[in-house]
């Protein structure tokens, strides 16, 4: 693998074409295909918010295909206990349980960021998400890192994640460092529910338990959220879906956070395994299935915008979403490197390419959708399609190499990204090809088709036997346009009785840490 990622490898095959002449026309209809419903796009978002988030891989569905984020693990301390967390590992609010990140001092963090930005021109966001709480212990390391960063690399966006307990004390500092994105993990808006999630908190020099703890945490979270939004700082809310504890309740959370100005709501599945040593893991609390998660996300659609592509990355993740190049930048290696100068010329060029590419995409998606609307009408139910991709919004990964599949829902209303399914083999260790294939089948069992750049004969047969059509005729094409073309064809075959609709299937959410590296 080369040191520098070529732009082509990110965007899939082919060159970047010139911008389309009339992107404005597509937007003027108010609804280009990527901008309907929950998809983040310019058409249904406040222009000021879009300006802030459009290059942020975590907040903009479009940007997550093009831009990279990096977490630096400078904040190991925490001030609450969550039942889905084992403090031997990272905070599970953003990272998943059972993951240990390399803890860095603020100085080491800066060196690491400089080294990464020299290698990865797509880097646009630096986040602090733990491994504990970024604002616990006075937020000292977090703010020190941001202070140094703002001097050295003012074009990088900054963001932080917190459980919210200490948030009201730090809002002024956050505003001062120009951190315009904050993520708060809010799992409840009712202490009765909260007491089953948080055994204790440390607040005002005291350990609180039970209802008292949940009540204080709830009040501080709401206060912090209101303080941030009233200062114009963007707030995303993360919630962990815990079946039987807060699953239904998350609809109330969705309403409450929307009313207080959160611009995105990210519902993540509980990941629970006895091996993680968490309270929920040990008591056998299960996580949701893929359909349970999707049903809840669909129900919340009208509330605060939902973000479905969060990868629950580890606290020291590096790279595009869905990949982690963290192991290329361990602290021994960083220490061994020469001091790196901050030069973002490559990054600027890259951003210009992306701007042009995006404008063109808005037009072509709108055309594909109009075609489907005309020929299919609204009679056919939407279907799910699994896509093997390396990024750049293209179908550019081999079936057998995919570490995850992106799931698109496509129907008469257009194609939209609704989630991703991990199929990496990390937890099993050395399991055979057969098991690997079964893992994939159970992860995408609710899909009608799987789009790949290439697929072998044997897995292809197995997929067909399982009722999932392997499709390689759109290799290296754009995902959404291909999905729409496929849907048009599917609707026709459905009409002729050549295929059956695949309703009522469910799929399994994989547990364990996502550790996919670049191939």
């Amino acid at each position, binding site marked *: 693998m080369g040191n520098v990622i070529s732009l082509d490898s990110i965007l899939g095959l082919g060159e970047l074409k010139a911008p389309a002449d009339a992107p404005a026309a597509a937007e003027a209809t108010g609804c280009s295909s990527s901008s309907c419903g929950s998809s983040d796009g310019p058409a249904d978002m406040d222009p000021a918010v879009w300006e802030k988030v459009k290059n942020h891989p975590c907040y903009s569905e479009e940007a997550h295909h093009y831009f990279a984020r990096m977490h630096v693990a400078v904040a*190991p*301390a*925490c*001030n609450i*206990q969550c039942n889905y967390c084992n*403090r*031997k590992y990272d905070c599970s609010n953003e990272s998943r349980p059972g993951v240990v990140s390399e*803890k860095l001092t603020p100085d080491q963090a800066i060196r690491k960021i400089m080294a990464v930005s020299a290698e990865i021109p797509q880097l646009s966001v630096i986040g602090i998400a733990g491994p*504990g709480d970024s604002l*616990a*212990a*006075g937020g*000292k390391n977090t703010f020190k890192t941001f202070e140094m960063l703002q001097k050295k690399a003012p074009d990088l966006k900054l963001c932080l994640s917190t459980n919210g307990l200490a948030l009201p004390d730090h809002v002024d500092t956050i505003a001062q460092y120009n951190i315009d994105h904050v993520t708060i993990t809010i799992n409840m808006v009712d202490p009765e529910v909260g007491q089953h999630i948080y055994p204790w908190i*440390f607040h005002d*020099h*005291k*350990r609180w338990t039970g209802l008292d703890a949940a009540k204080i945490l709830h009040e501080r979270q709401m206060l912090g959220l209101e303080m941030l939004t009233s200062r114009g700082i963007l707030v995303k809310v993360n919630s962990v879906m815990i079946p039987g504890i807060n699953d239904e309740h998350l609809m109330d959370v969705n309403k409450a956070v929307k009313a207080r100005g959160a611009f995105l709501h990210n519902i993540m599945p509980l990941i629970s395994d006895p091996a993680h040593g968490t309270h929920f893991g040990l008591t056998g609390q299960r996580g949701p299935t893929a359909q349970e998660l999707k049903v809840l996300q669909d129900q919340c659609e009208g509330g605060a915008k939902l973000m479905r592509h969060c990868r629950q990355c580890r606290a020291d993740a590096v790279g595009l979403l869905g990949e982690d190049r963290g192991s290329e930048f361990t602290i021994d290696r960083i220490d061994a490197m020469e001091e790196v100068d901050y030069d973002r010329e490559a990054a600027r060029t890259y951003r210009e390419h992306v701007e042009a590419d995006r404008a063109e995409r808005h037009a072509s998606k709108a055309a594909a959708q109009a075609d489907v609307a005309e020929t299919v009408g609204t009679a056919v139910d939407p279907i799910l399609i699994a896509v093997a991709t390396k990024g750049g919004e293209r179908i550019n990964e081999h079936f057998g190499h995919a570490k995850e599949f992106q799931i698109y829902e496509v129907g008469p209303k257009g194609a939209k990204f609704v989630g991703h399914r991990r199929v990496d083999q990390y937890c099993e260790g050395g399991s055979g090809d057969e098991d690997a294939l079964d893992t994939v089948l159970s992860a995408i069992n609710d899909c009608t088709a799987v789009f790949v750049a290439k697929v072998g004969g044997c897995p292809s047969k197995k997929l067909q036997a399982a009722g999932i059509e392997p499709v390689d005729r759109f290799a290296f094409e754009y995902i959404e346009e291909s999905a729409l073309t496929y849907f048009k064809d599917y609707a026709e075959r459905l009409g002729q009785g050549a295929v059956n609709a695949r309703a009522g299937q469910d799929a399994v959410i994989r547990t364990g840490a996502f550790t996919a590296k670049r191939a």
Partner: protein
Amino acid sequence: MAYKIKASDCTACGACEAECPNNAISFKKGTYVIDPATCTECKGQFANPQCASVCPADCCVPA
């Protein structure tokens, strides 16, 4: 009297260090330690020892 940290359970998160009103806690050789000469068990300052109240591993205990 003073508190001590059971090194075998400590996750080295540093939460205790930030809360100690007497700066009695420091990071030495991969783990956090309490200086018994400086630790007052928080008597006269707080109702409960701060380190023990914040510690996620319950490993700050009376020496």
